[in-house]
């Protein structure tokens, strides 16, 4: 069934979008990532203008992350206090990010920066996660006791200390706030929730227990993508409600299935799977930057407006 998208101004197959939403939503519930890092490139690939893809994807992530947050709240695996600190940083970051996005759109380099961001961030994050979780898996198999990740680093010497009961942490608010800003900028530029960078940052930088990381990350993603949606809607008018509705209908269902599956899979295995997926997307985008494109030219509308 073909459906006409009012903002993207083209007709697409409704079932294709529902399927995309469902598949990506499942990964979202499984890994606590928004899934945007997969969905945005996919939408651009099926012909949605990049500006509409990025803005609409933010709106869709609101739905899937909210659905995920509710599931995690029931299991009490959300650190609300930590989530709010991350969100405060995220708000600052997304305002900066939307401005950068607007500027890059004008000079025609959005595509390049987005691809570079993906390759660099996904490469680093995916690589580190893969190595770490393979090592952890090997250790747990050989029966060696895992030492708790409680090392005192520079993170613990900073001011504005706060107690995060759910995460069992007593650390400065500056690192989570900083992580929030970075994720907010990425969310706006890349049309992603930023979970793929936040989850590892929370585990390795803040030292949060893996159990609460996913729920807390989803909480922050929900707020930041909500803000990003409003900013894109008011500044660029690029949020396509019909596209978002189709994606999120598939997405929320997928996210629920994913969250159920997530309970059954071990933390290390989950991280290896996520790492492999992140590395695959990274490799694909990296290849596209390096290989000679079949079409050197591209059109963007406007110039007059």
């Amino acid at each position, binding site marked *: 069934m073909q459906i006409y998208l*009012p903002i993207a101004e083209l007709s697409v197959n409704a079932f294709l979008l529902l399927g995309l939403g469902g598949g990506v939503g499942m990964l979202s519930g499984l890994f606590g990532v928004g899934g945007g890092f997969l969905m945005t490139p996919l939408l651009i690939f099926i012909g949605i203008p990049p500006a509409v893809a990025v803005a609409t994807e933010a709106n869709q992530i609101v739905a899937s*992350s909210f659905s995920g947050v509710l599931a995690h709240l029931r299991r009490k695996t959300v650190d609300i206090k930590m989530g709010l600190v991350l969100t405060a940083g995220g708000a600052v970051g997304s305002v900066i990010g939307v401005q950068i996005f607007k500027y890059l759109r004008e000079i025609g380099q959005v*595509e390049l920066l987005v691809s570079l961001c993906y390759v660099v961030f996904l490469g680093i994050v995916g690589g580190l996660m893969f190595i770490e979780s393979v090592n952890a898996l090997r250790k747990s198999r050989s029966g060696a006791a895992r030492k708790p990740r409680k090392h005192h680093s520079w993170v613990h010497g900073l001011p504005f200390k706060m107690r995060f009961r759910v995460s069992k942490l007593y650390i400065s608010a500056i690192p989570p706030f900083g992580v929030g800003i970075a994720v907010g900028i990425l969310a706006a530029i890349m049309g992603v929730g930023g979970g793929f960078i936040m989850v590892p940052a929370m585990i390795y930088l803040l030292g949060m227990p893996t159990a609460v990381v996913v729920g807390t990350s989803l909480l922050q993603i929900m707020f930041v993508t909500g803000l990003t949606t*409003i*900013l894109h809607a008011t500044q660029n008018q690029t949020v396509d409600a019909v596209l978002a509705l189709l994606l999120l209908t598939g997405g929320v269902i997928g996210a*629920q299935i994913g969250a159920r599956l997530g309970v059954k899979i071990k933390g290390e295995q989950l991280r290896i799977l996520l790492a492999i997926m992140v590395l695959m997307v990274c490799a694909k985008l990296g290849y596209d*930057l390096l290989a*000679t494109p079949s079409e050197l030219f591209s059109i*963007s509308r406007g110039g007059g407006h």
Partner: protein
Amino acid sequence: MTHRLATLTACLLIVLMPFFTVAQAVDEPDDGGNPEGTRERVVASLSQSSVGITATFSGSEIFVFGAVDRDRLADERDDDLDVIVSVIGPEEPALVRRKSRQLGIWVNSATVTIDSAPSFYAIATTGPLREILSDTSDLRHRISIDRAVRVVGEASNVDRPADFAEAIVRLRRAAGVYFEQIDAVKVTERKLFQTAIALPANIIEGDYEARVYILREGRVIDDFATGIEVRKVGLERWIYTLAQEQSLIYGILSILVALLAGWGASEIFRLLRR
């Protein structure tokens, strides 16, 4: 009495008609009439003068039909009459970018602003364009697709600006919004013609125009144009207008819908699990 006078005047007019039209044809700023001096005009109509884009819009077909109006009966001289029908979407400027390899990766390095390029362009003809349309007529009426894309100010910052105009035609042909239908105009009884042009599903809204040209020996004898309004209607219209005019409310509504969907799915699955 008045009736007889009217009949007489009409007869006189008919007799004198060729003289009037010959005089007119000389004045004609166009490429001129045909060699025999016969005055020929084109009249045409469309199956619809507006197209509504609904949520389930999957394209629309416009029938263009009409007749060649002459001051004499059609005969074998009219076998070589050609007809071109075109449908043109709203014209707007476009930015065309070209990638080049820099430091090993492909980046957009050159940009050319195309002053005017139609968002949609379809041509139906009675024969191959190269055979039925002369270069001068094409230049004057901008009929062929290549002529419709206009670069006024030559871009000085790139070495081959023509490549950029060609790229727009190539990309839009690939997207199915620029196309030619050779031999798609049917002419019957040497004076009636008809064709159908399919608007694809990926058209944008705006004021479209249908143009009809009649030609002899590559020269345009007469042309006719009429508008087609392509507009989003119903829900599509409402969403688009809200997004443009009440963007904050639109943004908030989008989020509320998202939250509702997220909550709904979560509740449904909780019930299912019991």
